[in-house]
């Protein structure tokens, strides 16, 4: 998909001014946060499981080459095929080739954010194959010609009446006077239309939450059942997954499953957890005749052993964005690429470049909520700070920011001067703001005061107060 991260500031401004989006975003905070809390409170072992999940992924990453080789061997033994794709283009070409060999005209798709990352739908369409998204949220945004705005709730930015509008526009064979007031009616309409697509499609493409080295299985977790119909009814099942999805054993998957659904939607477990191992076997009355796994690198191997390796533990639950005040304010589209929120702010510069995605790690208040809820204990704020440092080193910030930081550094390196200067400034501002307690405008601070008042200082600096308290003690 087209990268819009470089214009993050403009995106964010538009998002803040979008009243409909702001209404939709209140759903994120009110629903996800409380549900996660209730689900984790109900499992006393939750915090210990987070540690365990982190350790399992760390161990796997240290031996990623060996686990991938073991996984590949098991897939082959089960009659499946593993294809290695270095880049997005490689993956697109491999998938197109498999679809062509199957004479596919229609391809159904279970939700796969990696397929968004590689721009798969555009590629298939351009080559005469119709991709049909089957997850309800993905189906809605496919009709709208949009990208997902959340990794587990792709249409979270869309409201009910917009879905109705889209369905009336797309489903022209249905009675134009039908009633579509209720979400249930909308769902039933999509269900009926997509039901036929599962039978029509020659190929079904899904992602994977896990690839299991012990058994050669791919695992998907869903609530709708769309992924299962996608992979069961097509002649060919293609799994598109990135390298770091490999996990050693069934027991290891069990550990991570216990933190995944609770962190994502506040469920103890997703409705459907499906382990797929190879194609249809002798005597099987259903299931795909071919089973392919496309293993995608696209920048992951370069993250190994570097500052951002911890990000490869991510299991895409979405908890970090569900708890992020910046995501709550601007939604997912403002981030400008596939991965929004704190995980996107770390991952997007890693997979693209800091030149393009430099704004994203700056879109954080460093409140730390993302790290506090991350089931894999990924130090997201620390990694965003790394990106900021790199951005600074590479002179990618505007001259005014660099001048300001340079000025601050000049004083910070001279403590006596720093204390005198800040003391004087705080006293002056305190006196000037004595009456109203705040400033609506201030020279050099319009970036702040344009949107909110600046509280007036109370006359003394933190260092002065600290010194007084120490003396008193």
């Amino acid at each position, binding site marked *: 998909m087209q990268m819009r991260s470089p214009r993050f500031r403009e995106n964010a401004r538009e998002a803040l001014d979008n009243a409909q989006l702001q209404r939709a975003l209140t759903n994120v905070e009110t629903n996800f946060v409380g549900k996660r809390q209730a689900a984790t409170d109900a499992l006393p072992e939750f915090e210990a499981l987070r540690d365990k999940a982190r350790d399992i992924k760390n161990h796997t990453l240290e031996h990623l080459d060996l686990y991938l080789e073991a996984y590949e061997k098991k897939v082959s033994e089960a009659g499946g095929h593993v294809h290695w794709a270095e880049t997005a283009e490689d993956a697109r070409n491999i998938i197109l080739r498999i679809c062509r060999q199957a004479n596919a005209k229609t391809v159904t798709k279970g939700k796969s954010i990696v397929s968004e990352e590689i721009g798969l739908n555009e590629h298939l369409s351009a080559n005469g194959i119709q991709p049909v998204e089957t997850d309800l949220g993905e189906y809605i945004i496919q009709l709208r010609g949009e990208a997902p705005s959340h990794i587990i709730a792709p249409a979270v930015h869309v409201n009910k009446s917009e879905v109705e509008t889209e369905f009336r526009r797309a489903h022209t064979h249905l009675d134009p006077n039908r009633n579509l007031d209720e979400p249930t009616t909308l769902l039933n309409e999509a269900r009926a239309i997509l039901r036929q697509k599962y039978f029509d499609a020659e190929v079904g493409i899904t992602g994977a939450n896990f690839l299991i080295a012990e058994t050669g299985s791919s695992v998907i977790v869903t609530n709708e*059942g769309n992924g299962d*119909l996608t992979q069961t009814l097509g002649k060919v099942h293609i799994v598109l997954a990135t390298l770091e999805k490999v996990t*050693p054993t069934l027991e290891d998957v069990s550990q991570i499953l*216990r933190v995944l659904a609770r962190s994502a939607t506040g469920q103890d*477990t997703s*409705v459907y957890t499906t382990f797929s191992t190879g194609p249809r076997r002798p005597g099987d009355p259903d299931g795909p005749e071919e089973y392919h796994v496309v293993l995608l690198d696209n920048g992951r191997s370069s993250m190994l052993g570097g500052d951002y390796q911890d990000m490869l533990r991510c299991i895409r639950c979405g908890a970090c964005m569900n708890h992020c005040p910046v995501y709550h304010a601007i939604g997912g589209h403002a981030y400008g690429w596939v991965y929004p929120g704190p995980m996107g702010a770390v991952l997007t510069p890693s997979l693209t470049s800091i030149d393009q995605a430099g704004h994203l790690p700056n879109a954080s208040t460093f409140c730390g909520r993302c790290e506090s809820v991350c089931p894999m204990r990924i130090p997201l704020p620390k990694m965003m700070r790394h990106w900021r440092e790199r951005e600074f080193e590479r002179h990618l910030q505007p001259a005014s920011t660099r001048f300001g930081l340079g000025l601050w550094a000049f004083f910070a390196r001279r403590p006596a001067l720093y204390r005198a200067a800040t003391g004087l400034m705080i006293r002056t501002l305190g006196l000037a703001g004595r009456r109203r307690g705040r400033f609506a405008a201030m020279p050099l601070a319009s970036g702040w005061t344009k949107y909110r008042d600046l509280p007036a200082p109370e006359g003394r600096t933190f260092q002065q107060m600290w010194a007084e308290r120490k003396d008193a003690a």
Partner: protein
Amino acid sequence: MSGREAILGRLKRRLAREGDLEAARAGEVMRRLEEAPAGIVPARGQLPDRERVALFERMAEAVQASVEHVPRMADVPKAIAAQLRERNLPAAVRIGADESLAAMPWEKAAPMEVRHGPSDGKDLAAVSHALAGIAETGTLVLASGADNPTTLNFLPDLHVIVIEAADIDGDMEAVLARIRAKFGKGLMPRALNMVAGPSRSADIEQTLILGAHGPRALHVVIVDG
């Protein structure tokens, strides 16, 4: 150079260690795959038989499955007939080749049409026999194959799953042990489906609606005997 060699080469350059250390790395990986050590198993499911089944029932109902008990396998067809009547569904079910299901006295539930084999999408109700249950989360475990075809789990509006009380385990780890015993170490059925409640979506304004793409209702029959 192929994609495989390029990717694995890059990974190995970053991960490989010298001599003995590299051998140790391979040993560690082999051992983990062989031993599959259990991690943390929540206390929630560690219960005596009766309480474990009660927990399973409670958890399944919490995810909107309906649950009933029958004393013996032979009582299942009548219970299913009653369910179909209650839900205003025609007296017809689809089943696979599962021996326990086939051996049931379906004639007792007459007039009931019993269709066999995978679903073509036209069945309103299907019956499967679960391999196991997980009390911890109210989950049912189904293995693919001619006995219980996978299409039965997803295409009908009503999915009835029959499970024997003795097959309800406390936690997922106990079920994994069962799977290894049945299929062999490192081997799996083509599809292993874990199912907790009927299909659902919350993609429209976060409103939870049952019956997204899979079954609109899930009915569990626990055979106590």
